[in-house]
């Protein structure tokens, strides 16, 4: 094994229809027009010395090291800024060039510390490499002159040019004494990340990289790591490298945080991760990363990891560590006992959106083939189930329509109910790049999120609707499109069902759907809605990106259908740059749905009542399968409280924190007789568990994750499972103990079975993934290398189906007791329930959930910034700190659910989407007042954090 190094062409390889052919050092090379001489040379394998150039950034031409000679041109142009031309004759080496380069390096080194042997970048330093490449042997200027290197001069006096290290960021260090001011970090922050946190202060010799007027942690820096990645020296470097030294081997794997699914190189020393470096050839991220994937992986070896199986009879008993055999036998015997006593339907499972496709597939298989019912559901129930229902109804498949790259071709971007800079940061960087290039932007969101206005980004229209009125807003947009004659008639006639279209057109054209009429519900000025609709319909390629602000409503599915209506009516599905793009939350929530985690569907979204499909599974699995769909998560909990649902196997989910109306969730869990948790931590749900099966982190696994663009990426094991067992093996052993045999030697064999049973995965294999890097499903005979774009010539369902989407206000209403609306969401540095990110240094940015409240609402309640406030709804109440924020609109408050101790979901209600039961997290009527005490739920929870988590008997380490 060795360290994977991607080729750095120095400047971006251009995409062009035209090519040019030139000669470099006597060799002929053909490249796309617009490619630099430097990149053309590198495509021949010729490395022209360089410092300020790297191919993730536009050429800059400042270091003067990459000079070349070109026949017929005067002087020595910089190869990074000189485009290759037809017939050009280039020389990259000559006496003259060599002398010039040595001279440049000599100047650089004269103001650089000579501590290479003890430098943290030793072995991975481009400055060192270039000194070697140009043959630098002496520095005639000496080191005593004016410099940035030494804290004190030889006279003992302080050197005013010297700056101390900035160690404020918990993950990397900025050492100004090593900086060569190549600007790569500043440009990466602008061009790649789009945050513009870094700058160069001063001029000439005084030029310094700075995070604005403050330190890195206090600045706008989002700690994405792009600057560290771009730095050619030890100036910006990971603290882990400072601590442990350079990694010696690496493997490409996939991040286990959000649904963007970034590819990373896990760079290792032995089985210790040194750093996670974004992989340039990863199609989802193309070399970019965010603070979570790049830096927040330390949880994987956190001391809180539970690595031994444990059982207990009652949840008030302390846990007892036991052998794997004992834990699995106990779980199996309990499930058998419960089924014998309460019936076959009395048990079920929840699959994890964080686990691999292969692990998820086995758990749902266990439910269907060993429990012999269909009581399996997954986290998508509470996030994107309406996407599945809405897109399948209108377009014929639940699939998001585009790949991420498509956004680079969008002319108008409509972001609705999504906060990509926090939730999907690496995709947000792509989106922001496109907007900086001139794409128009419409943001529909109750809050003034960062996409509305941030450096070099400004929404052309912000539609600050009231929570719960998405359908009214989308119908108003549709109304304008229909009544102002903005329909793409040719597209609709060719591709859509005309009868349904006419019904829809008549429906949205009704006066009640006019922006002027819906303003009373949405609160969005009609003129803005009209302008936004015109822009969307006529601005060129229009792409919708949406998130949980669409789905997590009583009318979540209706909203998805309303977006599909709008996109079909304007001809915006079926090519690059357009589409309806769900930004899915968790790393493998797409995959967990694909794998048959829903109680009514086998893998590939086929209903369990379909006899032909069921027979195929029955034949492969060798057991009769239940033709009746099973319970969804909320139904499981309802039946548990009622007393008919008694046993649950939870794979890597934490419903006691993540699901709405916590008291109802925990009442359901507490009523069960056997709850089995497979997880890496004793999470909130584990307080109610009887069996704990230690899981493995993504670093300990082989498998695949499927991201929000349907891309199947490999997850590769870089360290052995801390528990001694692969998760998929544990599921197999549980199935066996239940009397159902499963036999697989490796996750690749599970994928082979998935491919055999699932038409949209028929062409997927580990071999193919290793060859191609990744594929997007459907991947089969018709599309052997996968499908980046859906619905290209026709819709999957044949004709696109317009649905009538009447606005039905949620039953959750404000009133005198609860006059404000609470909407919940996420923040960049924390992830979901926080079980992972809270166990990293990310808490430096966000160590508690706060309540964002508009100044007017705060003032009328006498609330000052930082006050502890009580937040109460019809479901319950909690206390948390207030943060006064003009990002909010009056009447709406906001919080996150990342911290278990806050208990944000104590507040949320049982209301849910009409079609899928996806909970209405985004609309809860609340009241806020000052307080000086935690709520009674919080007090009880603090106590139970201890009483329900005791571990009494430890097994000696020697045991299994």
């Amino acid at each position, binding site marked *: 094994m060795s360290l994977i190094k991607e080729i750095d062409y120095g400047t971006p390889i251009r995409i062009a229809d035209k090519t040019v052919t030139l000669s470099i050092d006597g060799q002929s090379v053909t490249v796309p027009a617009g490619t630099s001489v430097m990149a053309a040379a590198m495509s021949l394998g010729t490395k022209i010395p360089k410092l300020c150039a790297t191919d993730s950034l536009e050429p800059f031409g400042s270091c003067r090291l990459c000079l070349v000679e070109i026949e017929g041109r005067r002087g020595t142009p910089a190869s990074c800024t000189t485009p290759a031309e037809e017939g050009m004759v280039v020389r990259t080496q000559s006496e003259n060039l060599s002398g010039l380069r040595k001279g440049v390096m000599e100047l650089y080194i004269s103001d650089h510390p000579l501590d290479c042997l003890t430098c943290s970048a030793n072995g991975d330093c481009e400055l060192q490499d270039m000194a070697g490449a140009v043959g630098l042997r002496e520095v005639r200027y000496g080191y005593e002159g004016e410099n940035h290197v030494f804290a004190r001069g030889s006279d003992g006096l302080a050197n005013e040019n010297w700056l101390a290290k900035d160690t404020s960021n918990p993950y990397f260090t900025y050492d100004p004494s090593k900086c060569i001011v190549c600007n790569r970090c500043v440009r990466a922050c602008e061009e790649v990340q789009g945050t513009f946190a870094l700058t160069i202060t001063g001029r000439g010799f005084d030029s310094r990289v700075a995070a604005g007027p403050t330190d890195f942690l206090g600045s706008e820096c989002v700690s994405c790591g792009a600057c560290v990645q771009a730095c050619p020296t030890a100036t910006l470097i990971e603290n882990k490298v400072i601590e442990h030294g350079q990694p010696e081997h690496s493997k490409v794997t996939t991040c286990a945080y959000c649904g963007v699914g970034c590819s990373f190189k896990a760079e290792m020393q032995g089985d210790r991760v040194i750093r996670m470096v974004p992989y340039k050839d990863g199609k989802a991220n193309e070399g970019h990363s965010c603070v979570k994937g790049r830096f927040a992986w330390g949880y994987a070896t956190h001391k809180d990891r539970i690595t031994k199986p444990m059982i207990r009879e009652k949840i008030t008993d302390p846990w007892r560590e036991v052998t794997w055999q004992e834990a699995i036998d106990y779980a199996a015997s309990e499930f058998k006992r419960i089924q014998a006593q309460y019936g076959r339907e009395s048990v079920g499972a929840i699959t994890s959106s964080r686990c691999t496709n292969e692990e998820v597939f086995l758990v749902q298989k266990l439910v269907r083939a060993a429990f012999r019912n269909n009581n399996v559901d997954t986290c998508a129930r509470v996030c994107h189930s309406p996407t599945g229902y809405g897109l399948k109804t209108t377009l014929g498949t639940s699939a998001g329509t585009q790949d991420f790259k498509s956004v680079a071709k969008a002319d108008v971007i409509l972001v609705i109910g999504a906060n990509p800079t926090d939730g999907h940061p690496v995709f947000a960087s792509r989106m922001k790049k496109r907007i900086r290039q001139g794409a128009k932007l419409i943001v529909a969101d109750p809050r003034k999120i960062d996409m509305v206005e941030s450096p070099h980004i400004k929404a052309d229209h912000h539609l600050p609707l009231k929570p719960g009125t998405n359908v009214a807003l989308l119908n108003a947009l549709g109304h304008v499109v229909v009544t102002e004659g903005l329909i793409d008639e040719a597209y609709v006639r060719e591709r859509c069902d005309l009868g349904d279209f006419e019904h829809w057109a008549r429906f949205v054209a009704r006066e009640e759907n006019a922006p002027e009429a819906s303003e009373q519900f949405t609160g969005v000025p009609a003129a803005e809605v009209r302008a936004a609709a015109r822009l969307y319909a006529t601005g060129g390629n229009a792409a919708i990106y949406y998130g949980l602000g669409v789905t997590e409503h009583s009318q979540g599915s209706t909203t998805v259908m309303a977006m599909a209506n709008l996109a079909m009516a304007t001809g915006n599905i079926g090519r690059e740059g357009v589409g309806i793009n769900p930004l899915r939350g968790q790393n493998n929530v797409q995959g967990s749905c694909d794998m048959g985690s829903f*109680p009514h569907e086998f893998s590939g979204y086929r209903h369990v009542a379909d006899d032909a499909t069921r027979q195929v599974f029955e034949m492969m699995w060798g057991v009769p399968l239940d*033709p*009746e*769909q*099973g319970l969804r998560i909320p139904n499981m909990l309802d*039946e548990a409280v*009622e007393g008919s649902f008694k046993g649950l196997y939870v794979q890597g989910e934490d419903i006691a924190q993540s699901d709405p109306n916590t008291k109802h969730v925990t009442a359901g869990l507490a009523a069960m007789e056997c709850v089995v948790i497979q997880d890496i931590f004793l999470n909130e749900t584990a307080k109610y568990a009887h069996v704990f099966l230690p899981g493995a982190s993504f670093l300990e696994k082989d498998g695949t994750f499927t991201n929000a663009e349907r891309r199947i990426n490999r997850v590769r094991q870089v360290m052995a499972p801390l528990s001694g067992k692969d998760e998929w093996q544990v599921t197999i052993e549980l199935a066996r103990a239940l009397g159902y045999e499963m036999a697989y030697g490796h996750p690749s064999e599970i994928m082979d079975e998935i491919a055999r049973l699932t038409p949209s995965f028929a062409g997927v294999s580990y071999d193919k993934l290793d060859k191609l890097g990744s594929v997007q499903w459907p991947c089969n005979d018709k599309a052997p290398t996968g499908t980046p774009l859906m619905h290209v010539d026709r819709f999957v369902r044949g004709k696109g189906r317009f649905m009538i989407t009447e606005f039905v206000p949620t039953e959750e209403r404000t009133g005198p007791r609860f006059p404000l609306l609470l909407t919940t969401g996420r923040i960049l540095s924390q992830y979901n329930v926080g079980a992972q990110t809270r166990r990293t240094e990310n808490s430096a940015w966000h160590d508690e959930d706060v309540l964002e409240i508009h100044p007017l609402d705060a003032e009328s309640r006498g609330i000052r910034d930082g006050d502890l406030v009580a937040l109460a709804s019809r479901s319950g109440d909690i206390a948390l700190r207030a943060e006064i924020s003009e990002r909010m609109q009056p009447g709406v408050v906001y919080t996150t659910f990342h911290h278990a101790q806050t208990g944000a979901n104590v507040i949320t209600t049982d209301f849910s989407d*009409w079609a899928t039961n996806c909970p209405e997290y985004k609309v809860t009527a609340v009241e806020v007042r000052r307080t000086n005490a935690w709520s009674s739920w919080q007090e009880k929870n603090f106590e139970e954090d201890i009483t329900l988590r005791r571990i009494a008997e430890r097994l000696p380490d020697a045991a299994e």
Partner: protein
Amino acid sequence: MTDTVTAQDPAAPQAGHSVHDDNLAKLLRMAGQIADFFKAYPEAEAVPAIADHINQFWTGRMRNDFRAAYADRADALPPPLRQALPLIRPARTS
């Protein structure tokens, strides 16, 4: 926006009686929400669509409970649900 179907049935099981009654009230609310979506369609389309949705997504027990609660008093259900009730399939017995 027109009146919603999701009206409470005064004679229906109300929250607070027992857990079973709570759950029945939830089923009624869910059925009402489904009916609310389809009421924009002509009755001939809406009624089978409501039943089909319930048949596809509710478990056999949920369907049986709902059918049993309204078997003798379908009149208590608002119109589109009332017509859909006979089309709701009982649980398969296996």
